[in-house]
């Protein structure tokens, strides 16, 4: 009897080892590819994470009609501020994700806000052609100032900031956000759909 149990235990152990190995292989094989950076090449520093949990400073940037807009206008929503530009490939890649997120997660309180470091005409064209469903602000110095005050002293984009309904900074991300990361971010912070 004990020999049978022992064989069963051994079999179960074998299956567990094979399953774990397979899982590990699958996880390794299908994980998102990270950019290969040669040894000695500097990394882009992360955003100023110390700002997470702090009240977002007031930021004023013009909209496409030239009207000054404040971040506090969107208080009460989960505000995802995305700094972008038409000359920035990684920024343009994530725009469709943001459009979809606004469409699908707006009911959960999400409000995407694009802030473009670019020329107005180029931004208008992109907004029209890509079918933006969220507001877009545009500027140069004002945008750099806004990014700095929101934790990005490099001036590099894309740069994304999540601000809670209470005006507190919840998350900062330097660099692009893919679909998985965006979904995880929204699921972590936003309330479940009603």
């Amino acid at each position, binding site marked *: 009897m004990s020999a049978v149990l022992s064989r069963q235990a051994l079999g179960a152990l074998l299956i567990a080892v094979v399953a774990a190995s397979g899982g590990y292989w699958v996880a390794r094989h299908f994980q998102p590819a990270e950019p290969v950076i*040669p040894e000695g090449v*500097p*990394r882009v520093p992360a955003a100023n994470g110390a700002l997470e949990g702090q009240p977002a400073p007031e930021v004023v940037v013009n909209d496409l009609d030239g009207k000054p807009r404040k971040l506090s206008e969107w208080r009460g929503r989960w505000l995802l501020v995305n700094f972008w530009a038409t000359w920035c*490939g*990684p920024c343009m890649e994530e725009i469709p994700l943001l459009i979809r997120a606004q469409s699908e997660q707006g009911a959960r309180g999400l409000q995407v806000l694009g802030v473009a*470091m670019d020329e107005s005409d180029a931004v208008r064209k992109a907004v029209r052609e890509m079918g933006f469903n969220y507001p877009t602000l545009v500027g140069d*110095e004002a945008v750099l100032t806004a990014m700095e005050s929101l934790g990005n002293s490099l001036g590099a984009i*894309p740069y994304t900031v999540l601000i809670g309904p209470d005006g507190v900074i919840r998350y900062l991300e330097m660099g692009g956000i893919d679909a998985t990361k965006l979904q995880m971010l929204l699921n972590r912070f936003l309330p479940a759909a009603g």
Partner: protein
Amino acid sequence: MRRLATWLVVCGLGTSVIGQSDPDVSVFSRMLGNGTRSLLVLVKGPANQPVDEIRIELPKGDAEQAVALSTPAGWKSERDGGALKLQWTVAPGYYLYRHMLKVSVDSPAKLSLAPLQLPKGEGKQDPEFGAVEIYRGQLLAHIPLAADVPLPRTLRVRYQGCADIGVCYPPQTKLVAVP
């Protein structure tokens, strides 16, 4: 030997970038600002900028000597009058877009130059922009100069680049004094 002194390190030494009163320049130049500020950025640590420095070389009449003195082996001037040469040093892990490189005369306003001559860049299939050319490391470009054409006093140099890690830097516009 005086021609040896024609190398002008714009960003590194910060003595030749003219102020920022020009509206176009002020738009995106704040990241590098004047040369002094860019030097601080470079010293601060991680390469915050795709370009370490821009150099501009002027033959000023003695084209053959200037070319021989200060250009890489194999470089040849295409005209007797020489060429205005510009060199970008792009930090490892960063690249410049060819289609974003522009050089024009800022002063005197009526003076025009021949188009910027650029080497073939590295091909890149950009997910957003399609097939583009980029430059890494040293980029040497030149603008042919006819012998009877006066030199400009100030050039307007514009470039833009990204980092391999997936972020891009705003277009930089610099006014560069021609000595």
